[in-house]
């Protein structure tokens, strides 16, 4: 299947990645190649097969909800590119 420019722009929006026109064109060609290859999967009969999400079938790993030592505020903020008053700083979210 071929992806249209509209599809790609929609995907870029979903993935939150800003792309140049050149990048979009190159990806469009390469993704078409990859998608036509993975279409081979459609030749398998999978109607009675259960999905495997994990190699070890672990379910519901619980732990006690205890207060433990964790990162200090200083440590947690240390790598932040922008911060103010002990908080992460980001552009305006609500108009």
């Amino acid at each position, binding site marked *: 299947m071929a992806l249209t420019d509209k599809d790609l722009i929609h995907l870029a929006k979903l993935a939150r990645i800003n792309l140049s026109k050149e990048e979009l064109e190159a990806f469009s060609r390469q993704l078409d190649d990859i998608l036509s290859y993975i279409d081979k999967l459609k030749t398998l009969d999978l109607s009675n097969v259960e999905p495997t999400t994990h190699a*070890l079938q672990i379910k519901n790993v619980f732990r006690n909800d205890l207060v433990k030592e964790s990162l200090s505020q200083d440590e947690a903020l240390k790598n932040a590119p922008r911060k103010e008053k002990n908080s992460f700083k980001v552009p305006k979210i609500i108009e």
Partner: protein
Amino acid sequence: MENFDITNLTAHEILEKKLDTALVCKKLKEHISQVDNKVKAYISFEDTQKNGLPIAIKDNICVKGELTTCASKILQGFRPPYNATVIEKLAKANIIPFGKVNMDEFAFGSSCENSCYFPTHNPWDLERVPGGSSGGSAAAVASGLAIWALGSDTGGSIRQPASFCGVVGLKPTYGRVSRFGLIAFASSLDQIGPITKDVADAALLLNVISGYDPNDSTSANIAVEDFTKSLVNNVEGIRIGIPKEYFLPGIDTEVKKNIFEAIELLRKKGAIIKDINLPHTEYAVEIYYIIATAEASSNLGRFDGVRFGKQAEGKSMIEMVANTRGLGFGNEVKRRIFLGTFVLSHGYYDAYYKNALKARTLVKNDFDKAFDEVDCIITPTSPTPAFRIGEKLNDPLSMYLSDICTINVNLAGIPAMSLPCGFTKQGLPIGLQIMAKAFNEEVIFKTAYSYEQSTTWHKQKPKIE
């Protein structure tokens, strides 16, 4: 005591001969300053005063206070506030991180060319790739720039570079080693493992890093045996399966010849060789690139320029995040996030993602059935020896196909090792892959050690000029 050759030195020799680790570190530093400008295995190297047995660490494993960037611009300058569990375990065994080594950005790649810094070169032929994504780890060990190293393997990222560089690489069973502090790529596939100069060091390192960790809910809560007890030169009665699906016409003739010679050697030593079938092998690449990219597109959502890394300009939060990711991620990362976003998106989820999960069951069933008949399976690690730098860079599909022998192991969650089994006429290393049932690394160690005892491939070292 001062008279040792750093390029051949293994960790078990350092321990057996009780070598002075400060002296080992000093010699290692000298060797790095002479050779690494050609191999370019290291990204960052911090001259710590800590003393211990040195180990090179792939740049996607968190070392407290030391640069950990996944070879990505988006994480430049990131110094983790905590250690990965494997780093804590190493410290308890007096093994210290000695530099961060190169990789494909976020472990996406099979050549180490997708690093935001520079490509690493194969020490056997500097014009060729070391493999990937743990290319820096494998190239460093092969050229004696590291005694041993940690890598990570999502679809072959430990084994394929080990095969290209002529060293030993082990992907442990899924759940054997904690991934806490490993920057996630595809969480249902990722595993940390050793890259070493011989099989004994791989056993030693797996002993140190294995075990249950409450910080990784997917780590298996089972006892860890002493893997060095499996270093026994005896394969008598071990049943080895040879799947014909891994010896297709596309395979390099020299690779095929060497693998069959290795199988013959094991047969002469008393192993029982059986032909087996793994009929869904041909779907591996399709299944893997759907599941791995879907999980990656979700895992990489955390790189938004807020808590770590670089933050780009933007009038709104959404614009800032899109700009940060557009500028910070390299091409292959964007391509895979795109593919992953697509297979998870409305209207395509069932046809791609859900079907890939079902097909994964068929791959797993193939292995379950095979292991009813045999104790381990032998295949090539890669259908070809190391390719040239730049050869596959603009053809992602052909790059993906180079993983064909390794990715099913991750889909099934089983352990597998690559070990040296010869060289091509041009002098490029060839890797032999041994797979076993989940939590059955012992039979891999036993088979690999027995083979290694009868060969000298692992003792040959590249001349770097």
